[in-house]
């Protein structure tokens, strides 16, 4: 709530438009006749971008103190570790 006072409301409709455009963009990329790897990389990049928009603006991480940010991102490494580790099962 604090940020309500500290700064004017962020332009939520702008974020919304951004998300919509990025989604449209994803749809475009997905069906391009490029190499699968390239497409996958781009798509993941876009997805992360969208996710960040939601987290930073809609969930206000942008205005949270560092402690809250830590709480928010702490589990992510754990999520990555298991997937990477198990994938090496098929790639050795």
């Amino acid at each position, binding site marked *: 709530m604090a940020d309500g006072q500290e700064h004017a409301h962020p332009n939520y409709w702008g974020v919304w438009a951004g998300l919509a455009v990025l989604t449209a963009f994803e749809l475009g990329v997905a069906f391009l006749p490029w190499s699968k790897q390239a497409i996958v990389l781009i798509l993941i990049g876009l997805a992360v971008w969208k996710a960040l928009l939601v987290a930073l603006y809609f969930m206000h991480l942008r205005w949270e103190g560092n*402690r809250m940010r830590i709480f928010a991102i702490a*589990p992510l490494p*754990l999520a990555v*570790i*298991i997937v990477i580790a*198990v994938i*090496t*099962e098929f790639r*050795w």
Partner: protein
Amino acid sequence: MATTALPLEHATHAEAHELSFIQKYIFSTDHKIIGIQFLLMSMLFLVVGGLLALMIRWQLGFPETAIPGGALLPETMAPDGFLLPEFYNSLVTMHGTFMVFFAIMPLLVGVFGNFLIPLKIGAPDMAFPRLNMASFWVAVPAGIMMLAGFFVEGGHSGAGWTVYAPLSADPEWTGVSYGQQLWLLSIAVLGLSSILGATNYITTVVNLRAPGMTWFRLPLSIWALFITAILVLLAIPILSGAAIMLFFDQTIGTHFFDAATGGQPLLWQHLFWYFGHPEVYILILPAMGMVSDVIANGSRKPIFGYHSMVYAIIAIGFLGWIVWGHHMFQSGMNPTLGMTFMISTMLIAVPSAIKVFNWMGTMWRGNIRFHVPMLHAVAFVAMFVIGGLSGVFMASTPVDIYIHDTYFIVAHIHYVLFGGSLFAIFAAVTFWYPKMFGRMMNPTMGKVHFWLTFLFYNLTFFPMHNLGVAGHMRRIYDPSQYEFLQPLAGINQFITVNALLLFASQLIFAVNFVVSWFRGKRATENPWEDNGLEWTVPSPPPHGNFAEVPTVYRGPYEFSSPDVSEDYLPQTTRLATDRTPAAGSEGGSA
């Protein structure tokens, strides 16, 4: 705004109106009552798990003789007193399940997390009392479901407490369907309970510490419970997710773990142990924390190396996430992974070493009082070390080739879980009993129980190392099938006899526990002359715990301080030299 003094308010007008019996003892939102509810529930399951263990032991010790009273068991389990192999598998599975998920875990996290956190940090209650109540009343149906499994057709899950797929994924392999499904549902439901609890604990520790109770003035028990809560929060959902997938494999024909259609049997093991290893530290960290409190009190000496103790807890909590593969060395897992997991597993010995030696450092040049809690606490150190050291054998991948899935592992399990966790629980129960029930437990009975338990415990589990060294596989119903195991029959009988005596000695504790509740001599505010905040309030503390918010001036382990004549110095006593903490002082160390 309302949140501000929310906890305090909550306290005050809770005093105001009288609570009905139901509100007070059944659907209570008071963390102390909820703690006691968890205590009774998990002790019940501890006994159940113990009884299952005795049946296991009987089968291994005296396969030729019918179990005494075994004739009472239905045909599907033990026709005229002789266990069926499928029932033996269910026994092993459910023994492990009940002990790990329904006895030790709730005892440590549910009971002492609930009872100690608010009292020791100076909060009137948990941050979310109603959520707290929910987490208990969600655990109850989980327990009922788990028990129900025995009585459904096809019997209870027989795939081991690790329920490896595909054995557990398809009734075709074991004939168990409903039993396994109930197991999975129950675990998922119990998981919800644990997650609610953990959310509550973390919030409480972070936000509700009394003024002056900075991070590095927290008792080690609270540090341990805090890190444990984080492990619970992040590890349990993995198990819930995996359990749900396995449940779907069982019921709606999905193929997650079914190799025939591209599923991955090893995926289950990875998911299970990614939860499972943090889980075993969930089962030891609170024990370590509470033992630290008791040892400092018993030695009348500040904890040796408080800071490194804290960092050790954090290190164990972190390393616990990157060692899960050590359960899978022989599973066909990528051998290079095996190598990395071996190193990380070895490294975990280091923080554990730090803790062990700091406990010894605490006793060194102390003035040790051997009250019953202290006896159990010292036994914890002595026994945990054995369990920990046997862990190093298995961490060494080549040695593990030989001892994997032998009784060496079983010995390890029981040295860390019984010698470790359970002894710590005995220490904690006897230490905080007066605060919980306002009465002292009988020390003589306590000492007798301790010595008998210590003796028979070692006679029961130490020989299991030797069985393992001789190659005795675990989870086998009838060792006599193998020539190389026949010479071991004697040891197996010896173990069984002692297991029976071990169980019997627990009854002393049960009696002491129940009788003292009603007849025990009234406890004073601070019977152990300890420094913690919980000892500054009446035993048992009133609803809302503290008349007014306590102010903390020092760490919890100021025993034998030169500043005062008596050998303890409560965290709240204000000496001339102390200045009142500014709000949020050092709060930054969060």
